[in-house]
């Protein structure tokens, strides 16, 4: 029956080019990068074997510890921020705006498509204190507070990063979660209301459990993206002040291209990959377990 659809030559012609390009650009370099982890050097000067020195260095390097901690802290805070803000917006769309929500959804979504570099530079100016007092500090002054040097300490810079990345993507998660919320049958909500559930209790006991799957896929998607954060930070703080906002991605980039140490850079890249896989796996496992319980 599937004689025509099983034609080997046609299959090879259709999938061959994609598979070839994908292998050459992604699969082989991944393995190759693994090999680099055991070397020292760079493209220009050549590579020499280095044993497991890069891996022992990884564990002794305080900068790696800092970068890893920053990456995890950033990923957890921004993921919670993005998904929470998105969920609140989605609830607003479904329960308050109803039919009128299409326009608001479209409006709140647009920051997602903006170039991160542009948004980063924009937020740098929005929060700046000198040479000009930016809108945020002007607002603080207007209500009688002192200007804050937002990029002077790592702690403040971290929160500007969080605010910016939540601003950028809450509309995206709102649409994603909205798709899950509108699938809840109106009859279920209606009978819960008749039983006296309303407001927060309705959300907590009816809406949350029913939108759990899409909430979980949002979390997985968000944590996967935030662990790899690079553009936002390069554009907004470039890792500073000092190395106070340097995640693993940026530390890997600096090690490789500023200090021309490709071997150690590859080792950091490997660590990043392992962290991404582990965290995703953990979130995935948790979501599976809770799903069977609820």
């Amino acid at each position, binding site marked *: 029956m599937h004689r025509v659809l099983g034609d080997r030559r046609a299959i090879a012609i259709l999938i061959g080019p994609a598979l070839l390009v994908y292998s050459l650009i992604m699969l082989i370099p991944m393995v190759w*990068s693994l090999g680099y982890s055991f070397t020292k050097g760079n493209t220009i000067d050549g590579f020499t074997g280095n044993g497991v020195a890069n891996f022992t260095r990884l564990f002794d390097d305080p900068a790696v510890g800092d970068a890893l901690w920053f990456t995890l802290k950033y990923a957890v805070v921004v993921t919670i921020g993005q998904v929470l803000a998105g969920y609140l917006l989605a609830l607003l769309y479904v329960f308050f705006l109803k039919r009128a929500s299409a326009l608001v959804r479209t409006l709140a979504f647009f920051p997602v498509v903006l*170039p991160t570099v542009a948004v980063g530079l*924009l937020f740098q100016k929005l929060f700046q204190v000198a040479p000009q007092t930016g809108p945020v500090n002007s607002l603080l002054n207007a209500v009688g507070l002192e200007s804050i040097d937002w990029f002077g300490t790592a702690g403040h810079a971290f929160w500007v990063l969080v605010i910016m990345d939540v601003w950028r993507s809450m509309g995206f998660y709102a649409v994603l979660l909205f798709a899950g919320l509108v699938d809840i049958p109106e009859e279920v909500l209606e009978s819960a209301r008749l039983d006296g559930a309303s407001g927060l209790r309705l959300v907590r006991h009816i809406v949350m459990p029913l939108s759990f799957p*899409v909430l979980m896929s949002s979390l997985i998607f968000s944590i996967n993206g935030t662990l790899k954060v690079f553009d936002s930070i390069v554009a907004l703080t470039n890792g500073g002040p000092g190395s106070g906002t340097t995640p693993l991605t940026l530390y890997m980039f600096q090690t490789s291209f500023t200090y021309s140490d490709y071997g150690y850079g590859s080792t950091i890249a490997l660590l990043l990959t392992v962290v991404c896989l582990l965290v995703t796996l953990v979130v995935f496992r948790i979501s599976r377990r809770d799903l069977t319980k609820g």
Partner: protein
Amino acid sequence: MAVDMPLTSTAARGNHASGDSRPRRRRSGRIWVKLVLGLLLVVEIYPLLWMFLTSLKSNSDYLNNSTWSLPTTWEWGNYSEAWSTGHIGLYVRNSLLAVLPSLALILLLGTAAGFALQIMVWKGRSLTLLIFLAGIMVPSQMILLPLFTVYFQAGLSGTLWPLILTYTGTGLPLTVFMMATYYKTVPRELFEAATIDGAGILRAFWTISIPMVRNAILTVGLVQFFFIWNDLLIALTFTNNQDLRTIQVGLLNFTGDFGATQYGPLFAAICINVFGTLVIYLFLNQKVMKGLTGGAVKG
């Protein structure tokens, strides 16, 4: 693998949701909603408005007057300054030269692979799809250094080819996955009836299947366009030459070319970058939303 979280069901649900069940404390609810909406509007729109107004200020106007004020003189010249003296024109050209060929390659190869994985019948296709999927998870940092070596030794450094090749390779996993999903809606029998041999199936892929998934190709194309156009990491790695900078790398290094920072042209450059993508969104927002969220729900 539930892609296509149907945004289509929105309209249907919206209708009967507003029908019955009115909340009791409606008036107070309304005011609260209006407040939230107003705040949302300000938070979303004001930064862009501020950016646009600032792009029309002169340097002294920007530095000496309140940040809320309108431009004292409207310096439209900031835009031509950014475009030529700031080289934004060159950077936009470079971006287009890198993005358009990558996009064409991604869509062609990705659609063909999606067709092979979903419509054609062969052993190992689910494994092949899994191999493609693995590429979505792995961070780009993992492939940059070996690629840098290869491009350098192949003499491709100093051209836009490293960008085109890397964008094509990194864009394929998601495209293949999304196209394979879209092909699920196309009945296989259609191709069995229309063809009798291997050459026929290739023709059928091109003449029958492509028109059927035209919308999907446009959607996926938009998603990939935004990813590539907005990319910084790959562009930063492979454009060691100033004349090759893409718009994002160029914007990041914008202040360098003027000596002292010229704020008007800087904001004009940010505006050019932002409003370019905003115009596309203005016309195709429903497709963009569907595509970007569809690509996300892949668990």
